[in-house]
């Protein structure tokens, strides 16, 4: 029996649903049907998905039920509908990167994340919208649709993984995965009022993730609770010989670790993250969260990350340089969009790329080509990599004194659609608080810490030490446990 007043199936957590599946109070097919019905009811307004295949999802759910009936259930994700950002390869499913370039591309193989999710029994449900090739902070750069923020349909869900965040917030998936190069998981999680986590660089394999900036990209989960994020992360983490940057570390049972880690922790507050540009309501909510950690007995101290103001600049050199190289593969020859009527093969490259890429992708390829071009390499790219060393050093220096760092995730709550679309620099600056974490390769998590007077979610970012995801999750849960933001859902 479902207790009275418990939320609709599509708003429940993995932990709660897994318990019902385990107890045979619920079947995976029933759950999938509820999520499909919810998606049909709200998707026209939310626009989180590029595509989804209800029949295929129901078949996966039926296979999960059959496994469970045979006593071969594979753990808490078995039968759970998991949405995937449309840059994560699943064999036989579209893989578009929300780009005209890959509008008709169907993945011929499973990436490692998909392979592991399938091994965990998850139902791979739908292809979630993003800023084209994960370049953007609002999901307005998609070639196909503009995803809306479920809390206010006139506002953006953040980006680039806006579809992944909106789907979980709206009840169109139970958990989802995105990718984070400069904040693309944490910022949309904050703007949509859910938990989002970027793991330490190298913890999750990038094999089968469409590359944007290879030294920064990481796959990570979106979830309603910290516990669900722990379950989802555990399913995809671990060394993979198919990704040479994957780091061979032991992956603990993150969910089991939660109960063992109770603090109190030493927490650092970087003064550079609380200056001009921080929305006062966001600042107040984050201060209140910091106050809560003090009440829990944590030692909270101000710290300094002196190179913070250079992070966005270094990022837009390094990320665009890497993207200009990675996206050279889209040449209209082997796969992807090919322009008609090209006069020779070189013209085919120029025209296919002109037609296949949107404005932001072109801008970044051009900027990246410029900073790598002869005569500018030392002034831009090499210097940015040295600044990256200094940024990383700032964090490692801070970790001699503190266990983790607390900051706002985004300087503002969700902004209006169109507000920053014509001003790329303003859009880039909305990633000010998340970008340093990618440059330093650290794990970062955003969790809800309140709402503005207008009812928009606010996110608290917790930055952890390298490969200390278990500790990071436990710190987040210590706050979450004492608040009821998780119980709030957008009216749709």
């Amino acid at each position, binding site marked *: 029996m479902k207790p009275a007043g418990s939320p609709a199936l599509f708003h429940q957590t993995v932990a709660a649903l897994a318990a019902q599946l385990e107890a045979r109070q619920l079947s995976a097919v029933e759950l999938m049907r509820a999520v499909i019905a919810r998606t049909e009811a709200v998707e026209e307004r939310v626009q989180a998905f590029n595509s989804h295949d209800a029949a295929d999802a129901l078949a996966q759910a039926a296979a999960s039920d059959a496994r469970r009936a045979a006593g071969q259930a594979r753990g808490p994700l078995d039968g759970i509908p998991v949405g995937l950002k449309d840059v994560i390869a699943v064999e036989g499913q579209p893989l578009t990167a929300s780009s005209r370039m890959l509008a008709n591309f169907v993945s011929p*193989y499973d990436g490692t994340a998909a392979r592991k999710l399938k091994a965990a029994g998850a139902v791979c449900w739908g292809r979630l919208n993003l800023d084209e090739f994960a370049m953007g902070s609002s999901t307005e750069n998609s070639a196909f649709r503009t995803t809306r923020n479920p809390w206010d349909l006139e506002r953006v869900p953040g980006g680039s993984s806006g579809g992944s965040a909106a789907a979980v917030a709206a009840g169109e998936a139970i958990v989802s995965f995105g990718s984070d190069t400069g904040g693309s998981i944490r910022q949309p999680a904050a703007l949509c009022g859910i938990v989002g986590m970027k793991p330490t*660089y190298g913890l999750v394999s990038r094999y089968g993730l469409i590359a944007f900036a290879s*030294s920064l990209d990481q796959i990570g989960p979106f979830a309603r609770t910290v516990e669900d994020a722990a379950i989802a992360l555990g399913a995809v983490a671990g060394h993979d010989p198919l990704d040479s940057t994957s780091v061979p570390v032991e992956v603990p049972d993150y969910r089991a670790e939660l109960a063992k880690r109770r603090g109190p922790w030493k927490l650092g507050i970087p003064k550079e993250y609380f200056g001009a540009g921080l929305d006062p309501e966001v600042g107040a909510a984050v201060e209140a969260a910091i106050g809560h950690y003090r009440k829990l007995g944590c030692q909270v101290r101000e710290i300094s990350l002196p*190179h913070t103001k250079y992070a966005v*600049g270094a990022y837009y050199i390094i990320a665009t340089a890497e993207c200009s190289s990675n996206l050279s593969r889209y040449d209209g020859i082997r796969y992807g969009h090919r322009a008609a009527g090209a006069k020779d093969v070189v013209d085919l490259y120029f025209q296919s*790329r002109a037609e296949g890429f949107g*404005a932001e992708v072109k801008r970044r390829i051009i900027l990246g080509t410029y900073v790598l071009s002869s005569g500018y390499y030392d002034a831009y790219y090499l210097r940015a990599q040295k600044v990256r060393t200094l940024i*990383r050093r700032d964090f490692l220096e801070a970790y001699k004194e503190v266990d983790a760092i607390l900051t706002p995730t985004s300087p503002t709550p969700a902004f209006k659609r169109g507000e920053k679309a014509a001003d790329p620099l303003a859009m880039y600056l909305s990633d000010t608080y998340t970008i340093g974490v990618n440059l330093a390769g650290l794990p970062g998590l955003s969790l809800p810490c309140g709402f503005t007077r207008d009812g928009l979610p606010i996110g608290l970012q917790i930055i952890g030490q390298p490969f200390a995801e278990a500790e990071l999750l436990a710190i987040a849960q210590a706050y979450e446990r004492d608040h009821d933001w998780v119980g709030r859902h957008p009216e749709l």
Partner: protein
Amino acid sequence: MSQVPDLDLDQVARLARIALTPEEKARFSAQLGDVIAYIALLKEVDVSGVEPTAHAFPVSNVWAEDVAQPGLPVEAALRNAPARRDNLIAVPKVVE
């Protein structure tokens, strides 16, 4: 919006193999001018004696055993090709 004197957009777009329309050139020139002016901030950092970081956690000398692994079947590998003939990808004539 600022212009950057040393950004030759035609030359860089040529290197990047992207054909730009006149409207794109005008817009990108102004927008990239702003961005390049912003990233010039990095010039004030003292980086003398600092090693560059390419990856936060460099893993060096990653070798795989030299053992054949199953690859994609030809049909799967060619499924996304824009034009094909027999088991080949068709392209415009490269050599006259």
